[in-house]
């Protein structure tokens, strides 16, 4: 079993280090030791430690300095000060610097274990609180659902980044929740009261994109009868999401770079610059470094935008979230599509978790909507789940993937639905019309289109 918690022990006395490590021997703990503050800091930067137990008097960086440096790097890391200085002043100073607790030498092993367990429990609660906070701020847009380690890592990053007013790149395949995350970041930032504005750079022609982003002056082009604000100005005081940033043409990329550098825009046809106060988030479903290598994306813009890059794991890499999401979509869409459905059959669950979900969460949501439509009982059965037949592990792009799935889904859906209805009705078109809630004429029309023969069902085929 892998150790759950990383603990770093720091003391300039080798024996004290060994003893402290012995006191904490436990399968749950991964113990690493350091002889002074500087060594401890290097180790802390290289690895994940949930708790640090440090001596106070050490050569070089001392315990108090180490607490401060650790807190700069990870606010949640629990630091326990271990020293002979059993004075109130030292304890107060250590707590002010961010220590979680304080233990006097000679160390009592039971007391140490209790204090470490308590500090780690606090760490865990802080982490949960941050996630809940993020979920709370993302309410009202839509929740980001999942409990997998991969998603938690992403959520942690979002929580850390949201309050810091820096550009962020959201990178991941289509349908992984980048747009939800962008809204959550906005809502958790100091700009939450300001506007959230989004534009898909791939969906707007180059000529329009410039005026959309930067606005235009009166008379800037034929038909510009009045001045118009661009999205940067619209988003002032708030957040601007540039979706599919790689598809922004080179001329626009250059202008975006200037906005990020100078904090001001110039409307099309104007000679005057206007200051803008906007946090820029950029989303991409492609690898920006590859786009730079192929000359499609400016490297200088990349460095301006990617102060922090948040990766979004595809659904196939967080399979443990699939059923949570499926259940969420039943609750979300069930009331309007099929209120009778309350859950999923085990076989249907297996089918869902066995699929590679190239269209990610969006594809799963569409699939569950379809399942709700065709489900006959109170649970979604395996045959209610219609999956796009894309080879496992192969991602599809948003444009081709979703259109293909929907086109095929429509035909598949009607055939599947009327096959089930006719079977349930024993081939009786009148009964089938009652089940489907449509006229007999319409049932006949659907049977004709789908190539189904009512007589076949009467014969029990």
């Amino acid at each position, binding site marked *: 079993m892998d150790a759950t918690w990383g603990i770093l022990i720091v003391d*300039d*006395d080798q*024996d*004290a280090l*060994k*003893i*402290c490590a*012995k*006191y904490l021997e436990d399968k749950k703990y991964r113990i690493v030791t350091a002889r002074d503050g500087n060594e401890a800091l290097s180790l802390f930067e290289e690895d994940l430690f949930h708790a640090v137990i440090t001596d*106070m*008097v050490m*050569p*070089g960086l*001392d315990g108090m300095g180490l607490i401060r440096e650790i807190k700069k790097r990870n606010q949640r890391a629990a630091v326990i000060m271990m*020293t*002979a*200085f059993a*004075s109130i002043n030292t304890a107060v100073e250590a707590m002010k610097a961010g220590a979680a607790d304080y233990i*006097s*030498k*000679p*160390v009592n*092993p039971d007391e140490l274990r209790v204090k470490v367990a308590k500090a780690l429990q606090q760490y865990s609660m802080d982490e949960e609180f941050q996630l809940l906070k993020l979920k709370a701020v993302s309410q009202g847009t839509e929740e980001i659902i999942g409990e997998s380690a991969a998603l938690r890592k992403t959520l942690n990053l979002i929580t850390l980044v949201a309050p810091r007013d820096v550009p962020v790149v959201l990178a991941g395949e289509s349908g992984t929740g980048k747009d939800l995350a962008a809204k959550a970041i906005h809502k958790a930032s100091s700009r939450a009261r300001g506007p959230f504005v989004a534009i898909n750079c791939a969906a707007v022609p180059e000529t329009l994109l410039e005026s959309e982003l930067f606005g235009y002056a009166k008379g800037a082009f034929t038909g510009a009868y009045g001045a118009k604000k661009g999205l940067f100005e619209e988003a002032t005081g708030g957040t601007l999401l540039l979706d599919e940033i790689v598809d922004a043409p080179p001329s626009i990329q250059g202008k975006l770079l200037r906005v990020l550098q100078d904090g001001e825009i110039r409307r099309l046809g104007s000679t005057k610059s206007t200051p803008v106060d906007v946090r820029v988030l950029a989303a991409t479903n492609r690898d920006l470094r590859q786009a730079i290598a192929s000359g499609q994306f400016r490297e200088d813009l990349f460095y301006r935008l990617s102060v922090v890059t948040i990766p979004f794991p595809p659904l196939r890499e967080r399979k443990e979230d699939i059923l949570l999401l499926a259940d969420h979509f039943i609750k979300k869409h069930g009331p309007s599509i099929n209120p009778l459905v309350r859950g999923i059959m085990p076989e249907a669950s297996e089918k869902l978790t066995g699929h590679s979900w190239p269209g990610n969460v969006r594809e799963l949501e569409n699939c569950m909507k379809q399942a709700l439509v065709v489900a006959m009982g109170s649970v979604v059965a395996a045959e209610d789940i219609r999956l796009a037949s894309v080879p496992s592990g192969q991602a599809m792009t948003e444009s081709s993937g979703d259109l293909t799935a929907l086109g095929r889904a429509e035909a598949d859906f009607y055939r599947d639905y009327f096959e089930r209805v006719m079977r349930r009705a024993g081939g009786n078109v009148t009964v089938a019309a009652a089940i489907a809630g449509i006229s007999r004429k319409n049932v006949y029309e659907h049977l004709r289109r789908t190539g189904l023969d009512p007589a076949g069902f009467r014969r029990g085929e």
Partner: protein
Amino acid sequence: MKGSDERLFFEHDLATPFNNLEGAKYLLERLAQDQGGDAAEALEIIGRSSRTLQKMLYWYWEIRKVEESYEPSPPWSARRLHEAACKEIAGNSLPLQEPASRGPIEAVTLSAPENDLVVALIGAGLSFQAASGMEAAWEICAVGGVIRVSFKVEGAASELDPASFFRKAYHPRKEEIRGRFDAGLPYLTAILSKSGGGRELAWSGNETRLEIWLG
């Protein structure tokens, strides 16, 4: 360095061997209970801890002696300070340069006990050298009727803040102190407080000095 700080450092260093002895006991208890203790490890810890305690108690004892029963000696020429320092360094093969002398040092008389003062100066020099991590140049000279002793290294303190450097000089790591010179700078401080004089850590440009005035 305030006296209270000095006592806190002493308390800290004293707590470590006691802490380790408790740890050794824990290891032996685990062994007795067949829970994987380590007897060899425990014995080594006990040995090291008792040696540390011995050193620390010597340190504390020497300083207390100066504080409580200091007796000035009849005036003696500072020339003997230079000679005695050279003899101690050579006789004990200490990793410290012999002091250079400058000016009419023989004309200045001192009242601190000769042997104690020499040991204290050498201990302070070793502490200073250990803190800087460099070999120190040592000079004894007469300036305006007093003796100025200086230990000097090039550039060492520029990378450390003064408080941190002084604490390292004042409170050397255990493995770097030796025998009766263990008491180091705190011992010198105690003697100076009784016999008159002072000490200061100073740096300018690319040079760090421990300056001591006697007499």
